[in-house]
């Protein structure tokens, strides 16, 4: 049997609400209560069941039948009255459209960020933000990514020229490989000043939050999520953009464990993607955590069998995470022998794409109303 009588009832009554004419009402009657109607089929199938099941299911199905017949009778009455009113002189055609009112919407990424932040807020996280133009220190160095670290190669960086005006000065450095150039070269390029960049990850806010403890600007424990824009020096295509949104998170307290990290992220996935979504928690490497974790969810399209969306793996990576590296904590003045910490980060654009099946990341920042009005 495909459907329980109660489910069928909900579906049928919902559909009935939208019925406004006599012929549509007749179609509805045939579909559910007719000789080959869905409910009739359930009642007929009872004969094949063992006696005790037949009895309980039969009673439930009959109850549904009574409800639906009652609703049908009421609806007939309503439609008849509406016809009478319309027929009277001066009656209004209630099917004419209403007076239009302006209907604005939030951008799908904003909606998603709100939703994600709300889930974490409900778990006790505070939402904080940090600057997009950032010192190299918070984006890289404080997170165990010194200038020669291979992780920099995967996060090609937009560097910000110090001072304003004078665009000729550093036109020669426009090579696209600056992200990988040694600091001595880079400092030279910037006239010995601290390197400034557009952050490549909102983990920079994690570094700042930790540093605030050492500076006396923030009390422990910490439980924050950090949404915002990040930038990558990357050619744009359907799946890569040079501007995107991320959300990082950080928890610091005595007795924080990887079990807490697992619990918090599973809880998030189940609240955001649905309780039935399978989660995979596997070892991975990020310089600022140890142990490191990759969190993936079962692919919504193939449910784990492998398809084009998930690259045949059955899984879609949604977050990187791990236990905050003791050096990262220590750099911010937090004693890793007393406090433990976990951190995580995820991309919001990707999450929205997965959720709504958007196939081109550029649509988000193209401002096309035909796209934006769908959300």
């Amino acid at each position: 049997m495909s459907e329980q009588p109660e489910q069928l009832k909900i579906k049928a009554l919902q559909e009935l609400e939208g019925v406004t004419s006599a012929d549509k009402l007749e179609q509805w009657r045939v579909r559910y209560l007719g000789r080959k109607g869905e409910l009739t089929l359930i009642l007929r199938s009872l004969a094949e069941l063992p006696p005790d099941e037949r009895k309980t299911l039969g009673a439930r199905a009959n109850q549904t039948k009574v409800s639906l017949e009652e609703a049908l009778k009421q609806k007939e009455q309503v439609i008849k009255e509406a016809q009478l009113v319309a027929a009277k002189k001066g009656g209004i055609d209630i099917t004419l459209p209403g007076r239009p009112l302006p209907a604005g919407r939030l951008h799908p990424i904003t909606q998603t960020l709100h939703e994600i932040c709300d889930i974490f807020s409900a778990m006790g996280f505070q939402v904080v933000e940090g600057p997009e133009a950032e010192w190299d220190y918070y984006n890289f160095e404080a997170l165990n990514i010194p200038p020669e670290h291979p992780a920099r190669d995967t996060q090609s960086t937009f560097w910000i020229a110090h001072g304003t005006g004078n665009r000729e000065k550093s036109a020669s450095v426009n090579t696209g490989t600056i992200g990988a150039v040694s600091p001595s070269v880079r400092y030279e390029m910037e006239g010995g000043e601290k390197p400034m960049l557009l952050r490549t990850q909102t983990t920079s806010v994690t570094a700042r939050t930790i540093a605030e403890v050492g500076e006396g600007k923030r009390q422990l424990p910490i439980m924050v999520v950090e949404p915002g824009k990040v930038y990558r020096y990357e050619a744009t295509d359907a799946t890569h953009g040079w501007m995107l949104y991320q959300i990082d998170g950080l928890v610091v307290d005595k007795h924080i464990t990887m079990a807490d990290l697992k619990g918090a992220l599973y809880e998030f996935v189940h609240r955001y993607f649905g309780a039935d979504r399978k989660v995979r928690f596997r070892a991975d490497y990020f310089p600022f955590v140890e142990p490191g974790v990759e969190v993936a969810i079962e692919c919504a399209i193939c449910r784990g069998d492998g398809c084009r969306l998930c690259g045949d793996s059955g899984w879609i990576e949604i977050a990187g995470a791990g236990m905050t590296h003791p050096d990262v904590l220590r750099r911010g003045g937090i004693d890793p022998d007393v406090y433990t910490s976990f951190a995580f980060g995820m991309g919001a654009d990707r999450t929205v794409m997965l959720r709504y099946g958007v196939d081109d990341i550029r649509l988000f920042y193209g401002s096309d109303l035909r796209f934006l009005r769908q959300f």
Partner: protein
Amino acid sequence: MKISLKWLKEYVDIALPAEELAHKLTMAGFEVEGMRVIGGGWDNVVIGKILAINPHPNADRLTLPTIDLGTEQVTVVCGAPNLKVGVKVSYARVGAQLIDAHTGQVATLKAAKIRGIASNGMLCSERELGISDSHTGILTLPDDAPLGMPLADYMGDVILDVTITPNRPDCPSVIGIAREVAALTGQSLHIPEISYQEAGPSIEGQVGLAIRAPDLCPRYCASLVTGVKLAESPVWMQHRLQDCGMRPINNIVDITNYVMLEYGQPLHSFDFERIRGKKIIVRRANHGEVLITLDGVERKLSPDMLVIADEDRAVAVAGVMGGANTEVTGSTTTILLEAASFNPASIHYTGRTLGLPSEACTRFERGISAGMTMPALKRATQLLVELCGGVAARGIEEAYPGKTERAPLSLSAGDVNRILGSDFSLEQINNALTSLGFECKRIDSSLLVATPYWRSDIRLTVDLIEEVARVIGYDQIPMTMPVQPLNKPAPTPIIGLKRNVSQILTGLGFQEIITYSLTSLETMNNLSAAAQPAEPSLLRLANPMTSEQEYLRPSLRASLLAAVAANRRHEDSGIWLFELGKVYLPRNNNLPDERETLCAIMSGPAVEKSWHGEGRAPDFFEAKGVVESLLCRLGITASYEPASDESLNSAEQAAIVMDGARVGVLGKLHPDVLERFEITESAYLFEIDLPALLRFVVGDKLYRQIPRFPAVVRDVALVIDADVAHQRLVDIIKSFPLVEKVVLFDVYSGGQVPQGKKSLAYRITFQSREHTLTDSEVNTVQQQILERLGGELGAGLRG
């Protein structure tokens, strides 16, 4: 990194099916991204030997080889030029699934007559078998290939495509993965001790070695092999290299690549005869030194770079690429083989600066352990002796100035469980670490853990904890929820304000957009209608991708204008948009001031044309109404003062002012600006600086008692000079104590109103919080109001 399962099995027993092995590796941090089965379709292909080759009677280019399959003999028609009697080949029976060399599609081999002679199956090329693209001749197999054996058993393999994280420089190698597999599956590892005959004289005295930059080269090892002959490497080695994505070149280069894939250590071979002074000197490059590398390019070196040199000149860029001056060639007979350890940061810098991210470079910059040099060097020397007819000199020349002892780490079950939240026993922890090659000594309730030489990534106890978690499995870690802090800090006010503002504006009919934060100088200049626009103060990227995205935007206006123009191509109703984003204002020697800014634009009626009529196109007062409504919801009343914004029409714009401070601007966009953005209709814009506004947002609202006494409402129509602002009248009226509310309900000029005058009609609500007002009380106040309006502004009652 491509890893051959067959190669892996030489070093570790594998009982699991490939899929399960892939899953275990993935979960433990070695993501298997793909799997290629070699020989999956070779059901009807077996190994044979050519017994005889007869000419084809009807075709010069074809021959009729007879193949011995061990139990039977068959004759086929073949067009390959590389047939030789006695050679082992792969023979496909009729029914085999082969790749058609011309179409690239899999096809079933059918019995066929070729130029009148029946061909009973065929001999296969590499392309037909799906091994490589080679189709110049048939695949030939080594002499010891067993007759009649299915080719799949002999050559079939599974190639795993494994992503190696950068913290594991020991793992892009067969042995590295084998160690992981052994730990993850509990199988045993067999890594043989390398030995070979050292028939030559001692290397000592033949080769000089000096490390002049020990900070950049902690260890350098070299072996010497004489009498080698440059040739093709054996077929099996070529196949392995191909399966792992490398191109076979010659036996010497192939051996160094093979050992790199096997042991993870890059090696380099020099033609020793061309090393001047028979000396290897590891030093920084000199100022202005140049070297032509193996790819024929002249490289300009600097003292930041490390070179391998002989007495006279550089012979290699250390760890990055060899020099052409000592390249192994056909006339080479003596090979100096190098296995060294280099400073990763220096290699990274050199590789990037020279634009030479070679495979060796990528490996070195991840920090390969100095301990890995010796086993790899011995393995490669062994292969040179065995496969190239070389004679190895006795001993290895070595300098190891960077030798360090790593102190063992202490680890207790408490340490592990404190981080993981697990309940692992010391026994479990001990087993996990031991399986990975760590040596654990139990002292009381702790382990003293010595790290194996190949693990350069292990430094702290947390590194050990991760190893424990990986081997036991992340799925064995329990799940708990972090306890919420009691003293939860209040949310940042600006975040709440942003959310509030965006929700109010959507309610007022605006669509939110998000646009790129980078812009061009031209675009910013287009925002000003002034003849000489002020030079904007902008933050510039040092490495922009295009000139359209060169500056951090100081304003959101251009993005909104562009969005209106783009949407207008397909939208005939109103376009009301807003963006809430940062603008970036430079500050000296500091990060820019990033100000959260609201900018909104209104073009065309808010609602679509319908049977109820046309929507009304927005005017200044509609824009002002939106601003007032937004501010009202936030609990703010602003005043509006004349402004001179260069994007806006000078006659229709106002500054939004709070307590004397400007928080924003609103007005009609200047037609010149609209034209530059290709907008042909009028449009209104408002912009608010949120941090400035935030100071006035009423956080905690206080309840005020609802008035208990009735109000008295009076309408007054006033005639006044046309140039007196409404605000001045309202300010006076509101200054009287009993006035609760003032509404302007009519503005009129012409008709009975004299020239140069206008009529303003106000509805004034009088109310007392103490008692019911009498008519005479209201009359008195109203009279006082009229007197002041008359005295100060010259207003009189309209007759």
